[in-house]
Each structure stands twice: as C-alpha cells, then as structure tokens.
C-alpha cells in the first residue's frame, strides 16, 4: 500500500489539530456551541486517523508515517515522529475514545464548560504525541504536558475530594517522571542522542542496563498503576468526572505498558531478562490483589478502578513473558481494557447522573425499569470478565498461553484472579441489573437517551468485533512484535549473572 505520508505530515496533523480546536473553543460563547464544536471536531480527528490504519504497511516493523525535522541541533534534539503496529492501535484508540468522552460529559459537566473542553483537547494532543514521539525530549514533553490538563480535570470538575485526588495523582506521576528523566539523561550521556531508535540495541554494560531499567520501571509502573504503585488510581478515578475516568483508564494507563514495550524491552534487553521473573510475579500479585479488592468494593467506580489494576496486571504479565503470544495478547489487552473499562466508566457515570450515587446497594434493581441500560451493562461486564466471544477473552487467552510458555505455576497462581474477576463483575451485574426492585424504587428513572446509546454503541461494536474477528487488529501487530522479540532476545554474549 503506498503511503502518501511523505507529502502529508499526517501524524503532526493529528497531534496538533486538537490544539487548533482548543483555540477555536476559546472563542466560542455558548455552552451548546462548545459541546457541539468539541464533539464534531474530535469526531473529525477520529475520522482523520483512519488513513493511518488503511495505509499502514503490515509487512514491515519499521516506523511508518515518519517525520524528521531538526529541532534543537545543538543538543541533537529532533522533532521525530513515527508509529509501528503497537502505537498505531493506541493512537486509534485515543482518537476514537475522545468523541465518546465528549458525549459522556454532555450533561455531566455544567460548570466551566469551555475550560473543560479545552482541557480535553489539550489532553488529546499530548496523548497522541506520546504514542508517536520518536525522540526522548519530544516524548517527555508530551508525557509531562498531559499531566496538567489531567490534574485539572480531576481537581476542578471532580467529586468531593477532588483536590486531594488531583494532588496525589500529580505527585505520584511527577515522581515517576523524575526517574524517567534520569534514565533519559543517562542514555543521552551514553549515546549522545535523544533519538529513541538510536538507543535501541546498543551494547550497554549490564549494570547500566539494570539501573536504566529500574528507573524507567518505577515511572512506567506508576503510570500503569501496577501493584504496589497503584494507590493513586482509585482516588483519582473516584473523584474524576466521567470523561476523566475514561481517559485515565483507556489511555493514560496504557502509556506505562507502552513505555515497557517501546523502551524497556528493546533498550535494556539484558535487564529485562534479569527482572522478568520478578515483574511476572508482581503482575500475578496485581491480578489477584485487584480481584480481591474489587470484590470488597461497594462504590461502583472503585470497583471498576480496582478491576483496572487486575486487568493491567494481565498486560504487564503478557509483555514480560517475552513471547509473541504474550506480547500480542498484552497489546490486545491494552486495547480491550480501553474499550471495556472506558465503557464501564461511562455506564457508572450514567448511573451517577440519574441517582447521584455510586453506591452499589442504591443502584440495585435498575434492570427492571432500564432494560436497554441493563443489557449494555451486561455486555460490558461480561466483556470485562473475559467472557468467551468478547474482546477480553482473546487478550486473556493469548496472555495465558504466553504465561504457560514461561511457567505453569505462574498461570496456576493467576487463575484465582481470573475467577475473582468473574465474581466481582457478576456480583455487580446481578445487583444492578437484577437486584431487588422494591427498595430502592427506580420506577421513575429514565432509560438511556440516544446520546448515551451513541456514546456506548461504538464500544459495544468493538467488544464483539475484536472478540469474534480479531484478525484485523492482530494483523498490524505481527511484524512489530516479531521485531521487538528479536531486539529483546538474548544476544549470544549474554550470560545470566545475578544482580550486583
């Protein structure tokens, strides 16, 4: 497939057009116009991202749609962009989640609508930028740029403890970023370049690799909200407005796992092998821990938030099995979690808009009067517990088969987490869709409006599309994952020595 991207800087357009949209939004007066403008604009960006998939060459692992411009020549900092199969999927997820976020905030956000929409659009720029950047400075810029609008989303439009949650989020992520920055500087000192592809596959010393790996690991693990670095996540999720929770779950968490795939594995392959067993067992702990805590929650948002900890455990586990099945499964799991958990947060937002509570007991029995809502909730809950035929099943299946390649004990220890996922999701579904209908009385609550159905419908389609026909999604991954594995595979000179 010919790529017209040489003449058309598609990635730059995708990254910076939301800023333009934000600039226009600043000029708009009425809230109605603001909502419509942001919705139409984000939808246009989403449509504009489709050619990335259409023109994507699945036969090569090279970075595609690449753009290179010298930026600060004195420090060899370049404006470099490009995507491979893994980032392609994450960019598409980002662009398509955005209009749904706007739809989900339509009624939810009533104050400072303009500022809210501007924050959303700046977020979009930063998120797409993170997944496309091929220069460390550019990457770090987008990585940090995301922090401020996200903190604002939580801190301004959030719930009762919004300031606490926003500050906690900011401090955690900032602390992680410092480690990332240290790793970037260390690599620059060694390589003399900020170019990400140039730092890959270099014969760094073992000690150096381990330190760089650990520094990046702290940063990414916080972002993934990997157990035990997850404590900022429930607070942020509970307080954030619906759109904030959706972005946090669907996109922001993925940046951590993306970081593992883009940096940790190819840049420090030796250290990856050294730390692999620890991270695998940490992932198993996350899966079980996430399941146990989710089972104990009565707050719907906390329940979904802790389920995220478990689901991201699957992603990290898949990545660090260092098998093709594991990494493809992990990438699928990242997309699936974005689709399913994003949808679940929208659903919880729908409950909150109607009942002004997120208490599981008070939301009991909504299925009787809201059949459409209950059906959609059912599908997303089943998808979340990896019901066969839905998207998460494929991801979990691949991750598990990758896990078996590493060790049977690992998978056996992770099974309780899988069972717990079914337990807490079915418990939630049973209560909300099928619970006692007399108390509380929901007979006056309205079923879903067209806007809400439209916000959930694309995600519903994706649940079954990926679940029953994953080939179009996995197709773009094969070459990139294969290349990644080659980069990570132990070079002949490597001997396994224990950590210094």
């Amino acid at each position, binding site marked *: 497939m010919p790529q017209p991207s040489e003449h058309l800087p598609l990635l730059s357009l995708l990254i910076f057009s939301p800023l333009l949209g934000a600039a226009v939004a600043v000029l708009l007066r009425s809230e109605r116009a603001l909502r419509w403008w942001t919705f139409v604009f984000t939808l246009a960006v989403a449509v504009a991202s489709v050619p990335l998939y259409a023109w994507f060459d699945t036969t090569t692992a090279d970075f595609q749609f690449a753009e290179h411009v010298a930026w600060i020549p004195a420090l060899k900092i370049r404006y470099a962009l490009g995507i491979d199969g893994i980032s392609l999927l994450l960019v598409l997820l980002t662009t398509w989640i955005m209009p749904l976020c706007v739809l989900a905030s339509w009624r939810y956000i009533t104050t400072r609508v303009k500022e809210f929409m501007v924050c959303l659009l700046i977020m979009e720029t930063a998120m797409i930028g993170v997944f496309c950047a091929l220069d460390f400075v550019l990457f770090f810029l987008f990585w940090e740029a995301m922090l401020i609008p996200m903190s604002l989303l939580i801190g301004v439009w959030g719930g009762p403890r919004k300031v606490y949650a926003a500050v906690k989020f900011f401090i955690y992520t900032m602390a992680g970023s410092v480690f990332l920055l240290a790793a970037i500087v260390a690599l620059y000192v060694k390589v003399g370049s900020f170019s990400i592809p140039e730092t890959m596959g270099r014969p760094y010393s073992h000690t150096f690799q381990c330190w760089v790996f650990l520094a990046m690991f702290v940063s990414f693990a916080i972002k993934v909200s990997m157990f035990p670095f997850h404590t900022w996540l429930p607070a942020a999720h509970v307080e954030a407005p619906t759109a904030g929770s959706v972005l946090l779950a669907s996109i922001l968490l993925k940046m951590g796992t993306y970081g593992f795939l883009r940096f940790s594995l190819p840049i420090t392959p030796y250290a990856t092998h050294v730390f692999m067993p620890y991270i695998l067992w940490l992932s198993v702990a996350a899966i079980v821990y996430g399941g146990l805590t989710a089972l104990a929650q009565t707050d719907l948002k906390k329940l979904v938030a802790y389920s995220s900890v478990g689901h991201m455990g699957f992603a990290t586990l898949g990545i660090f099995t260092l098998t093709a099945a594991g990494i493809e499964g992990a990438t699928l799991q990242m997309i699936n979690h974005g689709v399913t958990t994003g949808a679940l947060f929208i659903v919880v937002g729908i409950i909150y808009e109607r009942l002004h509570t997120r208490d599981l007991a008070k939301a009991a029995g909504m299925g009787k009067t809201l059949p459409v809502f209950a059906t959609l909730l059912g599908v997303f809950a*089943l998808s979340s*517990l990896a*019901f*066969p*035929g839905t998207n998460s099943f*494929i991801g979990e*299946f*691949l991750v*598990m*088969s990758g896990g*078996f*390649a590493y060790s*049977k004990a690992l*998978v*056996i220890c992770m*099974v*309780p987490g*899988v*069972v717990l*996922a*079914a*337990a807490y999701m*079915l418990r939630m579904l*049973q209560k909300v869709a*099928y619970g*006692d*209908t007399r108390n509380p009385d929901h007979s006056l609550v309205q079923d879903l409006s067209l806007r809400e159905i439209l916000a959930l419908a694309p995600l519903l389609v994706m649940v079954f599309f990926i679940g*029953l*026909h*994953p*080939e179009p999604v*996995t197709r773009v991954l094969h070459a990139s994952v294969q290349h990644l594995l080659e980069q990570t595979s132990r070079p002949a000179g490597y001997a396994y020595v224990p950590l210094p």
Partner: protein
Amino acid sequence: MATPPPQDIRLLLAVLAPLVGAGLVIASGRRPNLRETFSFVAALTLFSLVAFMVPDVRAGKTLHFTLFQLLPGLSVSLRADAMSMIFAVSASFLWVLTVFYSAGYMRGLKEHAQTRFSACFALALFGAIGCAFADNLLTLYLFYEIVSVCTYPLVAHHQDEESYEGGRKYLTYLTATAKGLILPSMVLIYVLTGNLDFADNARTGILPPDVHRWVVTALYAACVLGFAKNGIMPLHSWLPSAMVAPTPVSALLHAVAVVKVGVFSTVRVMLYVFGVERMDALNLGLPTAYFVSFTILLASIVALSKDNLKARLAYSTVSQLSYIILGAALLKPTAIEGGLIHIANHAFSKITLFFCAGAIYVATHKKNISEMSGLGRAMPYTFGAFAIASLSMIGAPPVAGFVTKWYLLLGALDARSLGIVVVLLASTLLNAAYFAPVVYSAFFGKPSAADAQHHYHEAPWTMVVPLSITAIISVAIGLYPDFFMQFARAVVP
C-alpha cells in the same frame, strides 16, 4: 492441512433458531399469546432442523460449519456427529413439549416476568444446542458459559431471599469451576497442541504423545471436575439449591439442558480430547469410575432423606448423571454406549418426573412427598406417568432406564470390575427405595383428613399432555432403543 469440510448451513440455522426465538420473545413484549407462539415456532424450527440432519448423520456423515476464525487453530465452529445427535434430538424435542407445559404452569400460577422467563429459556436452549454441536473445546466452553449466564435469571426467578441465594450459589459454582479449571486447561491444551479441535474419533484424542503423563492427568482431572454442571460430588451442591426455580425450569434445564450440557461436555472432552487409548494407557478410566460411584451412591442416600419432591428428584439427578460418566470412564464399548444412551433415557424419564412434580404443585400446591398420600386416585394420569418414569429410574424393563443399566452392567463385566457391578446393583436398590414409596403412597395411601374434603383434579391439559407424552416415549425408547443406540454405537470406535 486437509481441505476444509463443506459448510452445512443447517447447523448454523439450528443454533440460530433459539437465539432468534429469544429476540422475538423479547420483541413481543406484553402480548402473551404472541410470545408463546414465538417460543413454540422457535422450538419446532429447531427440532425440525435437528430431525432434518438425522438421516445424514445416520449415514455416517459428520456435518461442519465454521462461524468465526479467532486465532490460528482457534475458531468458533460447529459439527454434528453421532454423539451430538443424541443430545440435540432429546433437548430439542423436549423443548417443544416444555413450551406447552411452561405456558400452562406459568399462567396457572400467574407468575411474574413471563417474557424474561421465556426469553432466558430460549437462550438457555441456544447454549445447550451450541454445546451439542460444538466442534472444539473453545466453542464448547463458549456455549457452556452462555448456558450458565442465561439460566441465572431463571434460577433466581422469584427474586426473593431464597432464590437469590440459590442463584448466587449456582453462578458461583458454575463460573468458578469453568473459569478456574476449564479455562486454564483449555489454554494449556492449546499451547501443547496448537489447536482445540475435537478429534474425529473417540479413540485417539488430540494430545501429542510426548506430553508428560502427570500433565495429562492434571488436565483430565481439571476437565472432569471443571464442567461442574455434571453434578459430580463434591461440586454438586449448586444443583439442589437451584431447585428454587419454577418447575418447568427444573424440568427442562436441570433434568435435560443444564446438567446434560455438563455431562455431555465432560464425556465429549474425555472421549474426543483425551481419547480412549490415552485414558487407558494412563489408567485414568477405573479411578474415575470409582470416583463417580461415590456420587452415585451418596446422592441416592441423600435422596432417601428428602421429603420435598423436587429435592428428592434433584439428588436423584445428581446420582443418575454420574451413570453417564461412569459409562464413559469404563472405556469399554458397551459401557460407553450405555452411558451415552442414558443422556436421552434420563432426559425423557427425568423430565416426566419434574413435569409431574409441577403438575402436582399447580393442582394441589403441595411440595412434600408426605402430603401426597392418596393423591394418585385424584390425578391418575400424572401419577401414572410418575410411576412409569420411576421404573425407568430404577431400571426396570421395559422402560428406558433398563437399557442403560443393561449396557452399563455388560460394560462393567467387560472391564472385569466387580466393584462397579456391586455399585450398579446397590444403586438400583437405592433408586427403588426412594421412588417406590412415592408411587405406593400416592395410589394406596390414605388421604389426610383435610385432603378428603378437597376434590383435587388433574392439572390443566397443557401440562398433562406433555407429561403423558414423555412417559410414553420413556417406554417406547425402552422397547425400541435402536434410534438412540445407533448413534451411541457410531461413537464407539
């Protein structure tokens, strides 16, 4: 790789019929007659499609249909072979009768949420037929889980404390075992073999010969216990709790669809994933047979102690299901035939018993056996059918259950296992001990003083006709076992 077999559209249509039926039932909203018509048409369509496939399968053909290709070696696909037909024919035929019966029952008792009830019923059949026609472990697992989820609203139908509790237990047992045992086993089998397709015969299985024997044994144990719908002790206790459901649910789902999905899946995996030769080589057969013997005997003893009729039937089901697994576990042709044919035999007889229990409840609002003394004279058809079906459970000729016991005994002798012969004989005595008193006291017992005042009548005809038909069929397949037997014979290598 061989050329893919031709796609047979009848399989797809058969699986879709109950699904479309469920959709139409939901769309019919609050028009009960239209709703019942849709259910009936869906059931009849399903049965006709299944019947339409019978001649081809009888001729030794295996029909295929691939729905979705998920990953290499991993697909959602359907097949109709001899073993599927035993289950598909009985389940689809009994659905037709149950539609009539449940219309009578639900209207007779003016139950709530009848649309949800009918829709979930059809969805449960969708799952059951899918299991019958599953071509690989993944498809089997998919439909198995669909049955679990779609029957939950049926079990918890009354939406009171007791039914929520029963439903919770039901879902916990079934999903925990499926997720905790079947899913990891399935992934491991996929990792070991590269696909999950069932073998095309019951002999060889699909596991490569170099897999370590302990891995195979662990997988086997996980698969036998993991399909917890098969009611093997100690994972059986969801079944008696699920009897809080309305009787038509107990009848079709817990005597036919749900539990049969469990045993069918277990036997399917035993024969078509592990294979007779592998099980024989690793000596997995007899231990399994003794393990389920424990269930056969213990469940019968528990049944003796139950006064609630449905609870007694539930424990009888637990006991009888293990006959099917016992048959397969003996690994002898006659035993496997006996086990497989019991899928159909038990279905027709047990549904009769449940139909009777429901008819008695609708006519008299009695649930306990001790209160049924003398009722046989007021309800001769119902208790007559009950008597016939009891004989089948006991294994008396010429009713269906006798055929099962005959072949199982032959198989046990074939396997030179005196222990199993003793188990079969002891369980026959126990069956007689808990069924005979019910029939005896109904016909020859003295009605209580209060009952003597009442003039009880038979339940509505929509209930009596189906239970009479199933009782007659129980006798018919006892006299002419060949229809199901030919399929069972075709399964055995």
